[in-house]
């Protein structure tokens, strides 16, 4: 069966694998604190606290399993007139943004992203429904993409 998420004339660009770290670190911290607290309490107070430790542990294992797959599933492709972005492992989605519809482009990088050398490029159209963001790009690539999108958008400038 052909997947609608694999158009035949498209070669997908992957995002940086460092995005796995960027996504796992905050998750590990938020899940790790109750996990450690649960373990400590289970040892010092009583065995019932293993439940408290177990729930975050399950989520942690699940996210370690899932996040690398999610990151590998993120892809983007520049075609002549539009940009394709896809994501998702279980719940997959793809969006096609024509350059001429682009209103502005955002490039963002948080402190952890900067440390890892990552940036996020987000495209905005006149629609709030357009969820077109590419996380985990190296800063050079992000800047190149931004400039390229901006120049292409200008060349195909239209109203709404």
């Amino acid at each position, binding site marked *: 069966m052909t997947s609608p998420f694999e158009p035949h004339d498209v070669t997908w660009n992957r995002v940086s694998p460092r995005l796995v770290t960027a996504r796992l670190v905050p998750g590990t911290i938020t899940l790790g604190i109750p996990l450690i607290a649960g373990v400590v309490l289970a040892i010092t107070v009583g065995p019932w606290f293993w439940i408290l430790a177990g729930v975050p542990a399950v989520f942690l294992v699940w996210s370690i399993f899932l996040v690398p797959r999610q990151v590998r599933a993120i892809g983007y492709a520049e075609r002549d007139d539009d940009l394709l972005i896809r994501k998702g492992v279980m719940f997959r989605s793809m*969006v*096609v943004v024509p350059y001429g519809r682009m209103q502005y482009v955002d490039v963002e990088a948080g402190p952890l992203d900067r440390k890892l050398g990552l940036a996020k490029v987000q495209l905005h159209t*006149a629609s*709030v429904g357009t969820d077109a963001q590419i996380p985990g790009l190296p800063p050079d690539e992000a800047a190149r993409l931004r400039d390229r999108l901006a120049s292409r958008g200008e060349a195909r400038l239209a*109203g*709404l």
Partner: protein
Amino acid sequence: MSTPEHNVEQRAQPDAEELVWRRVHPITPLVRGWAVVGAAIVILGQQSLDGGPRGGLIALVSSEYWWTLLAALAAVALVGWGYSTLAWRMTTFAIGEETVHLRRGILFRQQRHARLDRLQSVDIRQPLVARFFGLCELTLETAGGTDSGVAIGFLKGSDADELRAELLARAAGLKVGRANPAAARPLAPSDAVTAPAGRVPAGERDGAAQDGVVPDGEQGAGTAQPAPMTSLEAPQVPVLTVPIGRLIASVVRSGAMITLVAWAVAVLVAVIVTGQFAVLTATLPAVLGAGGYLFGRLTGEFDFRVAISPDGVRLRHGMLETRSQTIPPGRVQAVRLVQSVLWRDRDWWRVQVNVAGYGGASEEKNSVLLPVGTREEALTVLSLVLPDLGVDEPRRVLDAGLDGDSRTESTYVNAPRRTRILDPVAWRRNGFTVTGRALLLRRGRLVKILDVVPHERTQSLGLSQGPWQRRLGVASFQVHSTEGPVRPEVPHLDAADAARLMGEQAMRARTARAAAGPERWMERQGE
């Protein structure tokens, strides 16, 4: 303070253009200040309902200090009116060659420039209090999202009409003679209203516009009033009105009313069974909320009139607050025809639109093109905003979209039979068809929905697929339109159909945009 963005730019004075700054009507502070007094009375009312340790407001009124209440109200009113007066003094506006300028704000000065070629709609609003004074507020929507519009108010009714006509004429690309006194130069023939010949079907417009040229002798008066330009007003042809009886019946049969009645019955049963009246008071806010929504819909859509003019669709409606909207051609981003379950035997439809600038839920009441109408009326209204669907038999295609399903013979591509497990009720309805000018998406069986998106108004396209859909080899397709009530999508299409639609629609949108008319709609045939 709101920050203008996108199309509404903040800039210094544009050079080479002399602007005449005008004030809004001097009664404005009185009208605006009234809102403060109203709010104070509401707060006081709530206080008296709640009561206090010493009996609250009711005790105060019956005591010998009752006058303090009046004094407090008077003080609130004075502060409100004083503030409004100050705000009025600081608010000025000017109409430039291509932009509208508005300055306002007391401490934080704000200067807003809106480009007229990006104008999305012009609305004239008349709240109840303003109506006593014959005043109106004019709102010019640009596509910058919520709160990006330029609201000029309040103006005398006739001034607002003139201003609207001038703004629309300028936005349409007509050259309007600078008829304001401060432009002390003589009115050269080239400055007069000149329109490219044969640009609109409405023949009178040219003649009418030519009459709008103000003779030189009438200029030069010292007042800041604009010279009369009423004849710039594009002639409008009434299309239809919604009878009040039908509006009431439609609200009674609406989904919200069904929910309200079901809720009321449930509460009543609960009260009888438990014998506790506390249930009643606990659910009262929800009931009041639903009742308020229905009341707002009734009054807001009261006396709904649709008319067409060369400047686009004109809507006029409202009981307590009247609203007169003008949506120029090509500003409608998407149209939805929807029929709730109890409207079916009358074959009534409601028509909603997305217009950039009308924004989200808070302004949803602006996005109604027809509150309720027969199928004929709904399709007439649709043809006003999308005159050409690009098919030979538009009526057949639309009828199939409105209540056809996979069993009826039509050009629609339907969701496959295997999706009935995902959508047991409406799977036969899910489908789409493509015409030369627009994409039509139909869905829903109890609440029937047909979305029409002109190809050139497509912002971006989306495809999504959950695990169950993947197993069945289907995917859901979305068209991203500007913010508004219409969110066009069709669920559970065959994966191959969805992929093909996605690819082809991107191309169609591109070619349609290349062929689309200019932002200034009167220049269409002049170029």
